[in-house]
């Protein structure tokens, strides 16, 4: 099954070329030009991974990361940035970013991270389902 990816960047040409390359590799790609747009998309659709630029007009990467994690904690977010400081990377990881890549990113490395993100998300969803079943059984049993 192909990976379902949401690509968020305010650079229109970067979005076009990245989605073209990802689609060539069989990924299913949706694009958003702002964090606000991304937030409204994730309300309606589910994704294996979100690839998001860290610096965008309006809501910045850190705010967007918090908002997405707040809405969908299971979502795997890989951050892309022009320059990554150690401080920002650590802060983003603490909030819940899955990974961090500096632009220009190695496409093969990114594709690998997307695959890993999908596997991690499946594990989280499985665990959540298991918890729910346990909870239902507990309530029925007692």
């Amino acid at each position: 099954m192909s990976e379902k990816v949401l690509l968020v960047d305010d650079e229109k040409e970067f979005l076009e070329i990245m989605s073209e390359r990802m689609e060539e590799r069989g990924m299913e790609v949706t694009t958003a030009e702002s964090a606000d747009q991304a937030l409204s998309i994730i309300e309606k659709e589910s994704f294996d991974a979100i690839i998001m630029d860290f610096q965008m007009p309006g809501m910045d990467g850190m705010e967007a990361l918090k908002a997405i994690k707040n809405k969908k904690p299971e979502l795997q977010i890989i951050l892309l940035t022009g320059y990554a400081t150690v401080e920002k990377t650590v802060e983003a990881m603490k909030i819940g970013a899955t990974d961090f890549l500096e632009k220009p990113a190695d496409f093969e490395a990114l594709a690998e991270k997307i695959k890993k993100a999908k596997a991690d998300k499946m594990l989280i969803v499985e665990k959540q389902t298991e918890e729910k079943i346990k909870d239902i059984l507990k309530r029925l049993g007692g």
Partner: protein
Amino acid sequence: MAKDENILAQEGMRFFGRMSASATHEIKNALATISENVGLMEDLSMMAEKGHPLSPERINDISQRVNRQVQRADRVLRKLNRFSHSLDLSTESADLEKTVCFVLDLASRLIDMQEVTVELTPPVSPLMVVNNLFYLENMIWRAIETACGAAEGEKQVMISFGTDSAAPSIWFSMETVKDNVMNDLFGSKEDRAIMAYLDISIEKNIENNGFGLLWPRHKRYKEKDNVGKSIACG
């Protein structure tokens, strides 16, 4: 005096760093798009080796995209180079409108990040000042940043110029202003040090929705040969 010089030096470094970081970030974005286009060419080449037909239109598209990004990166580098040269002379004659336009262009990415629209009304006739160009750019950026931060609602900032060429001024006004912002304008030690160095003062406008940078009347402002490095807005 030495204390003021320290503050000026520190603020100058901070300003240079901020502008350079923004410009290099933009260059990185251009490089990232170029890099992905090169990657796509490699993908297409591999597919062609396996017998998939290679469309000349697609190659042409990629080449145009790469060319656009190269031009974009070149524009940013030119801005950065010109900005670096503002440190060349201790004082020089500068056209205020052209300097404001240059700072708006240099900091366009930072302004875009704040989602603010800036409108500039040119002066009736050129307004010249004799200042240190680097700190003049620094002060203009501080004024733009203050105006952008004070703008609320539609986030519109209007820049205009005084009509008296013997006492030049730049005016910044906001369509809607955040509460209490106008009570505490340019009070930091950095603002005071730069304003003293450039011999300018700050005044609120009559509508209390903006402020002006004012140069004193007693100074003679004349055009010199080194004016004209600036570019026109837009």
